[in-house]
C-alpha cells in the first residue's frame, strides 16, 4: 500500500440522502427505449426494424466500421418503433422495445468460465461485442482497429474507487460477497489484454476493511498497487486522479493511461466469464429528492419515469442529474437509463424565501467557510437543495475559489479577465487550460459568480481566436459530456 497522496484544495461533501447499501432489483419495465449512442463512440445504425422480435442481449445496433461498440436489446420482446430522443445537447436515434416481461438474456458466444483458456483476441471480441468497451471516459482499450488507445500501449490502468463525488455508488454494494474476488478476476482479465500496464487501484481511505481485504488478496500475486485516497472532491476526476497516482511522471504517462470505474471492471469480467452483454446497470438513487435512497439494479433503457414514479418524493419539484451532481446537466424523466449511468441524483428545487436566512444558525447548512453551526457539528448530514442561497454580488476577493481549486489556478482572476473581455496569452499563462471543470469554484463563491462558466467561455474564446489549437475530441471525454456535461 502506498502512503496517502492527495491534491491541494478540494472539499469533503457530506449531504443527507446518501444512498444506502440496499439493493433492489427493479422489475422488467413494460417498454424500454434504447439510445443508439451510449458512452464512447459514434451513434450506431439499427439492425432491426419495426415489428422484429428480439431477445434480451441481442445486438440491435451496430457500427458499420466496427469501431463503436454495439448496442443491445436489454429486454426480450418486440420492436415497437424507431424513434428519436431529445437530449439536452442534441437528438439521438433510439429503438423502442415492448417487453414480454421475461428476465432471461442471451449470453454471448465464446464466453468461458475459465477465462485463462481464452486468447487475447478472443477476450477483446467478447469485450467489444458485449458493449463494455464503451464505458468510462476513454472506454476500455483493446488491440482492435479503431480503439482510440491501443491496449498494448497502455502503461497505467487506474481504477477509481475513491467515492469522492457528493453522492456515490456504494463500494459495499458493488463488491458484496463474491463480487470482490470477481472484481480482481476482472482486473486479471484486463491485465492479460494490457500486459504492459501497471494496475493502480485508488480506494476511499475510509474503507479500512475493504483496503485490508484488497491488501491481503493481492499481496501474493502483486496484481496491483493499492492507494488509499481521502474521498475529497474532485479526487475522482480523471486528471486529478492521474496526477495523484502518476505523480511527477504525469506529463509523460497520462497519454498512456486509462481510468476505469469498479462497475466497468466487474461488467468486463461478466462479459468474458458469463457472456453477459451490457444490458443492466447498478444505479444509486441519491439525494434528498428520493423517498428511499437505495441502489437499483435496472435494465438499460428503462424510462426514468418508471423509477421516479416509484421512488421519487411526491411533494415538491426535484431536479434530476445523472452521475456527478456538480458537473452534469439536469435531465427530464422522459429520458431512459443509459449504459453509462451509475447514479441518479434527485435534488429538491427549493424556492422558499426563508425568513432572515442569512442570520440562521445553520446546524445543517453546508458551507466551505465555517460561518455556520454546522462547522461545530461535522458529523451531521447537511441539507442539499438547488436554492441560490444569496444574491449575485461583485467579487470580494475572499479567496475561497483559489483555495478549493484542485489544479492551483486562481478562478476569480481568470473570471475578471474574461468579463473584461481581455482574451490573450495572459489567460493561458495563468493556467486557464488547466481547469478540470470540477465546478468547485462556482460552488463555493459567496458572491454567487459563475466562475466555472466564465472560465469555460474564456477557453472557448481563446480557441476561437486561435491562441490555442482545439484538442481532438477524445472518445469518452465527450461521450458522457455529449449528453450530460453542464
Amino acid at each position: 500500500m502506498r502512503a496517502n497522496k492527495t491534491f491541494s484544495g478540494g472539499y469533503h461533501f457530506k449531504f443527507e440522502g446518501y444512498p444506502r447499501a440496499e439493493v433492489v432489483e427493479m422489475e422488467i419495465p413494460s417498454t424500454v427505449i434504447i439510445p443508439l449512442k451510449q458512452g464512447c463512440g459514434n451513434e450506431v445504425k439499427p439492425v432491426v426494424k419495426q415489428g422484429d422480435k428480439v431477445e434480451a442481449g441481442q445486438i440491435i445496433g451496430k457500427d458499420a466500421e466496427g469501431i463503436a461498440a454495439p448496442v443491445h436489446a436489454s429486454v426480450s420482446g418486440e420492436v415497437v418503433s424507431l424513434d428519436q430522443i431529445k437530449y439536452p445537447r442534441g437528438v439521438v436515434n433510439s429503438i423502442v422495445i415492448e417487453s414480454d416481461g421475461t428476465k432471461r438474456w442471451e449470453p454471448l458466444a465464446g464466453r468461458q468460465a475459465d477465462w485463462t483458456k481464452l486468447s487475447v483476441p478472443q477476450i477483446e471480441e467478447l469485450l467489444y461485442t458485449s458493449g463494455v468497451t464503451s464505458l468510462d471516459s476513454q472506454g476500455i482499450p483493446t488491440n482492435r482497429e479503431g480503439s482510440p488507445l491501443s491496449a498494448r500501449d497502455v502503461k497505467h490502468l487506474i481504477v477509481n474507487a475513491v467515492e469522492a463525488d457528493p453522492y456515490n455508488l456504494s463500494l459495499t454494494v458493488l463488491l458484496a460477497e463474491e463480487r470482490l474476488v470477481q472484481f480482481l478476476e476482472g482486473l486479471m482479465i484486463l491485465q492479460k489484454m494490457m500486459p504492459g500496464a501497471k494496475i493502480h487501484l485508488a480506494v476511499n481511505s475510509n474503507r479500512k476493511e475493504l483496503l485490508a481485504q484488497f491488501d491481503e488478496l493481492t499481496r501474493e500475486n502483486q496484481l496491483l498497487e493499492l492507494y488509499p485516497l481521502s474521498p475529497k472532491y474532485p479526487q475522482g476526476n480523471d486528471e486529478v486522479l492521474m496526477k495523484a497516482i502518476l505523480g511527477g511522471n504525469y506529463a509523460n504517462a497520462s497519454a498512456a493511461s486509462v481510468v476505469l470505474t469498479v462497475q466497468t471492471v466487474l461488467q468486463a469480467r461478466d462479459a468474458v466469464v458469463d457472456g453477459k452483454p451490457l444490458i443492466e446497470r447498478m444505479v444509486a438513487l441519491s439525494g434528498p429528492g428520493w423517498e428511499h435512497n437505495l441502489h437499483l439494479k435496472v435494465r438499460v433503457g428503462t424510462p426514468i419515469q418508471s423509477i421516479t414514479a416509484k421512488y421519487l418524493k411526491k411533494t415538491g419539484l426535484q431536479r434530476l442529474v445523472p452521475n456527478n451532481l456538480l458537473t452534469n446537466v439536469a435531465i427530464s424523466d422522459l429520458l431512459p437509463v443509459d449504459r453509462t449511468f451509475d447514479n441518479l441524483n434527485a435534488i429538491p428545487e427549493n424556492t422558499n424565501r426563508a425568513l432572515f436566512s442569512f442570520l440562521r444558525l445553520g446546524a445543517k447548512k453546508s458551507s466551505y467557510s465555517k460561518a455556520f453551526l454546522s462547522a461545530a457539528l461535522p458529523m451531521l448530514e447537511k441539507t442539499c437543495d438547488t436554492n441560490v442561497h444569496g444574491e449575485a454580488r461583485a467579487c470580494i476577493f475572499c479567496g475561497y475559489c483559489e483555495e478549493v481549486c484542485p489544479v492551483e489556478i486562481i478562478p476569480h482572476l481568470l473570471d475578471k479577465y474574461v468579463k473584461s473581455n481581455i482574451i490573450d496569452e495572459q489567460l493561458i499563462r495563468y493556467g486557464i487550460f488547466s481547469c478540470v471543470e470540477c465546478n468547485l469554484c462556482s460552488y463555493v463563491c459567496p458572491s454567487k459568480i459563475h466562475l466555472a462558466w466564465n472560465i469555460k467561455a474564456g477557453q472557448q474564446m481563446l480557441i476561437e481566436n486561435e491562441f490555442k489549437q482545439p484538442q481532438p475530441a477524445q472518445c469518452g471525454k465527450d461521450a458522457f459530456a455529449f449528453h450530460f456535461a453542464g
Partner: protein
Amino acid sequence: MNRFRQQLANLQNKKSLKPLSPAFRHIEFLVFGPGDVTASAPHIVDTLDSKRYMSMAVLALMPLSLASVYFYGWRAVAMILVSYIFAGITELLFAFFRKKEITEGFFVTGLIFPLILPPTIPLWIVAVGTVVGVFFGKEVFGGTGRNIFNPAIVGRVFVTIAFPLLMTTLWQLPFTEGLGGFLNFSRPDAITSATPLGIFSGGEAALYSYSDLLLGRAPGSMGETFRLLIILAGVFLIIVKISNWRIPVAYLGSVAVFSQFGSMFYPGRVAPPLFQLLTGGLLFAAFFMATDPVTSPFTKQGKWIFGLMLGMFTVLIRGFAGAVEGVMFSIILMNALTPVIDSLVLKFKFKPIKDYGVV
C-alpha cells in the same frame, strides 16, 4: 409575511418613492432569502452569501461595540447609529444613480468607522467622515469589490487631517468602575490629551501598565482599547474563515521584529515590541482593517509581503514621523501598493508561456 413582502414590492415600484426603491429592495432581501434556484451545473451552491459574510464580521465586532459602551457610555451607540445612517444614505444615493442594488459592504464599514474614532468626537464629524469614507473610499471606484482603499481608513484619515485637534488631543478616560458606561451617556469632565503612545513619544514615564492596556483601562479610540477582546474576536474571525490568518500574523510579527531592532538602536524614538503591540490602533487594524479582502493582496505570498511592509511602515511612522499613530497611514500606503504586489507575485508564480513549450 406574504402581505409584508407584497407591500415591500409595491413600495419598490411606487413612482413617487423611486429614489428609495433600492432601500426597499435591500430590506426585502434582508428579511426574505432568495427564492431563485441555480440555472445549471453545479446545481447546488454553498450556503454562505455576501450578507452572512459581512454579518460574521459584524458579529465579531458586537462584543467590542458593547465593551465600548461600557467604557465610554451610550454616546458610543449614538456614534454607531450616525455612522450607519449616513453610510446607508450614501450607498442609497449611489444605488439609485447607478441603478444597482445596495450591497452589504456598508454593514462592516458602518461599524468599524466609529470604533476607530475618539469617543469625544462630535456627531456631525462622524457623519462627515462616514460620507467621505464611503464616497471617496469606495463608491467613486465603482462600489463594493472595486475599491483600492479601505473606506473606514479613508474616512479616518480625512477627519484626522481636517480636524486635527479634535482627533488627536481630546481623549476620554474610560469608565472602569461597576456598571461603567451603561449608566452614563458620556463623560465630558474626564478628558485627557495623553494616550499611551502620546506619552511615549513625549518622552514621559508610562502611566498605564500592560494589563491596563489589555483590558481597556487606558484611553484611546472607542474600539481599540479593549485589546484582549480584539484578539479573541480577531481569532474567531480567522477560525470561521472570514478573515485570513496570514495578514495579522505577518503584520504583528513584523512590528515585533522591526520594533525590537528599532528600540535597540533608537530607544527614545522606537518603543519596545510589547509596548508597540499593545498601544494605539495596531491590534484592531491588524485583525479587522488590514484583513479587508478587497484592499489587501489576494495572493498568499502577497499577503505576507503586505503584512511585512505594513509593520515596517507602522514602526517607522510611529518612531520617526510627526504623527503619533502610524497605523492608519501605513494601511493607506499599503492599500495603494496592493495591486503592484499582486502583479509581481503573479509574475513569479505563473511562468511565461514559452517555458511550457508549444501551447
